[in-house]
């Protein structure tokens, strides 16, 4: 055939392509071509799905196979014009998320390049509703070969030699099945061939793709199979959920009849083969072969005992050979190419390729065809492009409801039938559902057992009752009502179902449960014992994700609802109930609540921290909740707290509120720990800090400053003085070294020390050029604080004498960070703020050598880095680029890569330390290895957030109370619930529509010019109107629990009738 040079636009228009808008794109293309009379210059081809469903709608342009992914209506004309001119539109080429690298053609795109497509590649060449298209690309060649010289044994031998195994899941050798079918019942008997396209496994859709995109290859495979086994009648059993597949298969069938490829006496060969297409009626069990036969016979799809196997006794009692769609699609390939050639792909025991549907929480989703023996890791990372966003991958579910899951640590497993079985899963029909840390494995088990409970045909009791019981138990666990003995019971039930059920559905029904129990038992235990769902999925446990994810259990949804009602004082009370550092955290919290906010899934998360700030500022302005009521009379029990940071003071606050006599010892001259020394004033004004400190003091605690552990007192001396318990919260203030030579010369400063000096108003000599190494908050805070070195509003600087010695602001401040802006751990708004203020951040840069002269810093030599593979932390590892060294002259180098606790004064005190130099505690109770001594905050975690420090203070207060009152020290875990429910704000239709499109309210901030050299707070707080508007955007997740729904129902009942009717 002479090569046609006319370019051809190929439209991927399977069900998913059409869902993504392919039909509109096709129409627009046709319209443009007709209007501009371009039909001589360009061809069109509408094909089935090309597999890369994520980037649809797409246009592929032959002969060069350029791909334009995710196109809009407006792009169509441009693409056609450019193509006719022989040009390309580079801006429309495929790009990976966050990268500027363009991939022009199909074979450049990693998702396609790393596949081996024996079956899927044909889809691009075929318009599935045109038989001549199939024939002209070599289709029906295998059929021709076979029909001109029918040799059933020859065919069976060829399939046997190719070692083809059933692609439906069980992997039975196809050649062997055909041989048995051929022998079954002698030659005179009626025999049937069935193509099983009842692809019921949720998450798998390769059969749909093949039937939609290349239906003639299935028909060809069926005729060849029919000839091999001596069947003159075939059925394609398709599930009703696949309308396009049914349509294409029906058209193909009709066309094949018209050409005499199907029917009586095919092409004068004396061979008959008739084909029927049967539409399923929605029953998962029909994928089981004996049930499928019942369904074809028009009965309820109850499976039957095997043997006799269908291959001996099937439809209406006649021998019936059942093959999967993908198996049959392989047949023409084997007959066409020959078994020897076919066998070159794959591994012994599992030859050829397998199509997987790679879906779920992965960047590139779609159909993936790879040789057997490919590892899961290759599929997930090389083809799938790894996780979506920052979330870490957890597991892959394979084999649908009969399968199991493979945890991330086993991703190096090569995929074949046997290896997956050994790992506790199965190949199944090829669904691969990727799960990340936002997927709860207990919920997944519940999902599958519930699915199977509904799909169990009910014939045998182990399956019918078993699926019901395990669903009940697992559902209880996901709702926070699990008991510790449940896990053993589940394992037992699973085993019984496996042993005693009749058909495959029942025997494998417990697999998803058993596999998750095997690999993710700790998640079950967390649900049962700690009432925690780490993926923040199980609704009855978490109530609202904001409250659940708050380390100090703030009832976020409640106070947000109160703000929406303008009931600010109540909102403030709700906040202060759980949080003595309300005003501080309203400014510096890392707000996990916002990261988990459900509004953030389809748009912007609610600005929760800014709302809290609005309420706390309102409280300050109106003098609300300024102090707390101290107890009338203390109980006389003395508790010592070492360290006056957020953790220590919180613990002291709650103990004092309970009547204990609390003394806080602070080494420094100021109280507040990191809040005073680490966080600069432009983020946390000192009067705000003072405000919260006053509130805490009002509970009645004694604070001794300038009193250090190890110098002024010891743990033993405190006990001797009659303190009944101790809480250590001395923080993590020691900056880590780089570990390179000359690190201690003059001019090199540890980050924490520099920041503390500046914040406390001490003079440091910075010189003109300052470099900062690191990318954490300390590094960025230090950089921005240095810009403001001359500012003097600090309350710690009231000492007039020091003002004279004021530090001078340097000319340049540069941060050197070894990864990119995507990995930087400092808060996004801080990094942006720093850049706006003129601080340079050199990304992908790491220090190599300090250049000193006469014991004084002169310069630093840096290396450029590039990002490599993903490391333990889930981020891509920086790798030095050889020969990229460069020297930067510096007067001051601040090393701020991380901090660790100073534990020098805790040696030989009976405490245990981790390899990171932190104090080892029981995280549930804060108890150390020494009786009566508790510890919390950064001292036990290393550098951490303020809210986590406050949380540990609260836990410690509980435990200390249990300890001193002689009770068992044990943390009570409860499911999350708000203390009260607030009625939702009523909206009109218009208001609702407005809210649906409204974005997040943003706080006004000072411009870089206005804030750069002073300590005035950068963020100015939400005005009332924006705050209430923002609060109204809340989705009120807490009302979705059973308890929440009950509240809503009651609300409805109590309303006047007219309002209900509205």
């Amino acid at each position, binding site marked *: 055939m002479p090569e046609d040079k006319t370019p051809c636009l190929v439209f991927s228009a399977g069900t998913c392509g059409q*869902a993504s808008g392919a039909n509109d794109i096709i129409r627009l293309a046709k319209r443009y071509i007709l209007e501009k009379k371009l039909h001589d210059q360009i061809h069109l081809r509408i094909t089935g799905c090309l597999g890369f469903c994520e980037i649809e709608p797409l246009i592929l342009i032959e002969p060069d196979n350029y791909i334009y992914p995710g196109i809009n209506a407006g792009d169509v004309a441009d693409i056609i014009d450019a193509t006719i001119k022989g040009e390309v539109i580079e801006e429309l080429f495929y790009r990976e998320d966050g990268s500027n690298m363009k991939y022009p053609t199909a074979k450049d795109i990693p998702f396609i390049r790393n596949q081996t497509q024996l079956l899927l590649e044909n889809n691009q060449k075929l318009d599935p509703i045109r038989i001549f298209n199939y024939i002209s690309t070599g289709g029906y060649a295998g059929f021709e070969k076979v029909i001109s010289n029918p040799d059933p044994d020859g065919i069976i031998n060829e399939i046997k030699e190719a070692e083809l195994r059933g692609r439906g899941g069980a992997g039975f050798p196809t050649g062997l099945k055909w041989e048995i079918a051929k022998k079954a019942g002698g030659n005179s008997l009626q025999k049937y061939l069935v193509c099983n396209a009842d692809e019921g496994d949720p998450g798998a859709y390769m059969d749909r793709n093949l039937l939609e995109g290349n239906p003639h290859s299935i028909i060809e495979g069926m005729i060849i199979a029919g000839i091999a086994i001596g069947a003159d009648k075939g059925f394609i059993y398709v599930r009703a959920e696949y309308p396009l597949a049914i*349509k294409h298969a029906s058209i193909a069938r009709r066309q094949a009849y018209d050409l005499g490829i199907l029917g009586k006496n095919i092409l004068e060969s004396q061979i008959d083969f008739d084909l029927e297409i049967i539409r399923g009626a929605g029953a998962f069990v029909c994928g089981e072969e004996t049930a499928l036969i019942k369904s074809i016979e028009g*009965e309820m799809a109850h499976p039957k005992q095997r043997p006799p196997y269908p291959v001996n006794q099937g439809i209406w009692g006649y021998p019936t050979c059942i093959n999967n769609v993908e198996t049959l699609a392989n047949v023409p390939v084997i007959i066409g190419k020959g078994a020897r050639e076919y066998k070159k792909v794959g591994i012994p025991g599992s030859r050829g390729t397998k199509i997987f549907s790679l879906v779920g929480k992965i960047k590139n989703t779609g159909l993936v065809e790879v040789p057997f023996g490919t590892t899961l890791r290759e599929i997930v990372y090389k083809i799938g492009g790894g996780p979506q966003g920052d979330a870490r991958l957890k597991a892959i579910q394979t084999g649908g409801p009969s399968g199991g899951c493979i945890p991330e640590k086993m991703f190096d497993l090569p995929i074949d039938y046997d290896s997956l079985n050994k790992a506790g899963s199965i190949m199944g029909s090829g669904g691969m559902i990727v799960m990340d840390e936002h997927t709860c494995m207990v919920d997944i088990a519940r999902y599958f057992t519930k699915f199977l409970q509904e799909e169990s045909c009910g014939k045998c009791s182990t399956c019918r009752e078993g699926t019901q019981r395990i669903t009940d138990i697992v559902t209880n666990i996901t709702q926070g009502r699990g008991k510790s003995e449940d896990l053993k019971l589940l394992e037992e039930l699973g085993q019984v179902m496996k042993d005693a059920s009749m058909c495959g559905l029942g025997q494998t029904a417990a697999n998803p449960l058993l596999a998750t129990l095997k690999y993710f038992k700790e998640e079950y235990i967390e649900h049962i014992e700690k009432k925690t769902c780490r993926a923040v999925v199980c609704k009855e446990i978490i109530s609202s994700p904001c409250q659940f994810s708050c380390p100090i259990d703030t009832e976020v949804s409640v106070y947000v609802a109160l703000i929406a009602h303008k009931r600010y004082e109540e909102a403030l009370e709700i906040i202060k109930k759980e949080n003595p550092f309300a005003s501080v955290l309203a400014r510096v919290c890392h707000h996990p609540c916002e990261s988990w906010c459900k509004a953030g899934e389809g748009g912007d998360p609610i600005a929760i921290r800014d709302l809290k700030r609005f309420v706390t500022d309102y409280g300050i302005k109106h003098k609300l909740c300024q102090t707390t009521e101290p107890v009338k009379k203390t109980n006389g029990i003395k508790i010592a707290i070492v360290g006056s940071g957020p953790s220590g003071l919180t613990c002291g606050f709650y103990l004092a509120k309970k009547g204990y006599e609390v003394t806080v010892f602070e080494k420094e001259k100021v109280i507040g720990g990191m809040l005073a020394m680490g966080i600069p004033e432009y983020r946390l004004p000192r009067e705000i800090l003072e405000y919260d400190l006053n509130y805490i003091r009002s509970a009645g605690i004694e604070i001794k400053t300038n009193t250090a552990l190890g110098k002024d007192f010891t743990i033993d001396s405190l006990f001797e003085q009659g303190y009944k318990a101790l809480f250590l919260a001395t923080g993590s203030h020691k900056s880590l070294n780089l570990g390179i030579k000359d690190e201690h010369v003059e001019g090199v400063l540890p980050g924490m020390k520099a920041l503390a000096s500046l914040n406390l108003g001490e003079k440091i000599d910075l010189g003109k050029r300052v470099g900062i190494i690191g990318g954490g908050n300390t590094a960025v805070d230090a950089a921005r604080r240095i810009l403001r070195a001359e500012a003097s509003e600090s309350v710690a600087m009231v000492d007039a004498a020091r003002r004279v010695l004021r530090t001078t602001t340097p000319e340049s401040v540069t941060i050197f960070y070894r990864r990119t802006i995507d990995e930087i751990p400092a808060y996004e708004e801080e990094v942006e703020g720093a850049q706006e203020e003129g601080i340079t951040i050199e990304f992908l840069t790491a220090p190599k050598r300090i250049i000193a002269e006469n014991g004084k810093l002169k310069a630093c030599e840096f290396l450029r880095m590039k990002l490599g593979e993903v490391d333990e932390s889930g981020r891509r590892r920086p790798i030095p680029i050889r020969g990229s060294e460069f020297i930067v002259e510096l007067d001051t180098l601040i090393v701020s890569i991380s901090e660790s606790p100073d534990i020098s004064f805790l040696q030989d005190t009976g405490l245990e330390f981790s390899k990171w130099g932190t104090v080892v505690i029981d995280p549930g109770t804060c108890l150390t290895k020494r009786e009566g001594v508790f510890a919390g905050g950064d001292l036990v975690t290393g550098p951490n957030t303020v809210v986590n420090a406050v949380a540990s203070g609260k836990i410690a207060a509980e435990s200390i109370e249990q300890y001193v009152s002689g009770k068992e020290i044990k943390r009570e875990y409860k499911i999350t619930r708000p203390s009260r429910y607030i009625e939702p704000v009523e909206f009109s239709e218009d208001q609702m529509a407005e809210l649906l499109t409204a974005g997040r309210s943003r706080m006004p901030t000072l411009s870089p010019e206005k804030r750069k050299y002073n300590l005035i707070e950068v963020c100015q707080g939400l005005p009332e109107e924006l705050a209430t508007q923002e609060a109204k955007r809340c989705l009120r997740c807490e009302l979705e629990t059973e308890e929440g729904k009950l509240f809503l129902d009651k609300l409805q009942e109590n309303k006047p009738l007219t309002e209900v009717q509205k």
Partner: protein
Amino acid sequence: MYLSKGQIEHESYDSIVDECIEKHGEFLIAILQDIQKRYNYIPEDAMRKLAKKLGITLRDVYGVASFYKAFSFTPKGKHVVTTCTGTACHVRGSSKIVDAFSNELGIKPGETTKDLMFTHETAACLGCCAIGPVVVVDGDYLPKVKTTAIRKIIDGTKRGAAILEEEDQRIFPIQVVCPQCNHSLMKPEHLVDNYPCIHVTISFKRKHGWLRLSSLYGSFNIESEHDIPVDTEVNFFCPHCHAELVGSSTCPECSAPMILMLVTNGGNIQICSRRGCKGHILDI
């Protein structure tokens, strides 16, 4: 087309049940599928008739009809919204989509609103796993659906998203000629959809007359001398040379013969000859 319960009771199921049996022989499931398509549910009387005619018990028919999820014993709504709850859609949050539909429509999955406007369903897997969560509204697949879009989807469906909009770029006029005599089939003096219509002569069931088709690609509006009952196959002729406008292929939707006309700027268009079928192919 959706009949209320009262109307149905007065209808005789005989002819329809006969028709279905004739079409599908003894394939009970296929017969039930046809009945369901016709009435939007399986009426009890139809099951009785069916059992009698097939010589099986009502229990057999009811057993099968109740076993498979596709069959419903209560009428379904005018619009059916189906949320896929397959695993891939589940891990991407489809249960929240289902909840959102329940909240907006005030009914649980599997139920139909009182006004018979909406049926709210879930499906185990629709096989569009790569673009989940997926919702199907009256056969249209919607990819990557978010909870915040549910209200919009319902409102859009109520309004009838398929209404022709002037601005719709996907709808455009074409001009056709007879493939035999190459004479234009356009009649500028008669407008359908505000565009010159395509004018042909037709015959069906011993009736002859003219037929005017909208020349908008994507519009199925016609004007005809005679009322053409739904499902009737019609023969089309060129009004100039009187040749039959018949294509070589059959309709991809219903397998009736296709009508062939040439498009003036290149290519050809084939439309289904059966009244009510929207099968068409535009080849360029």
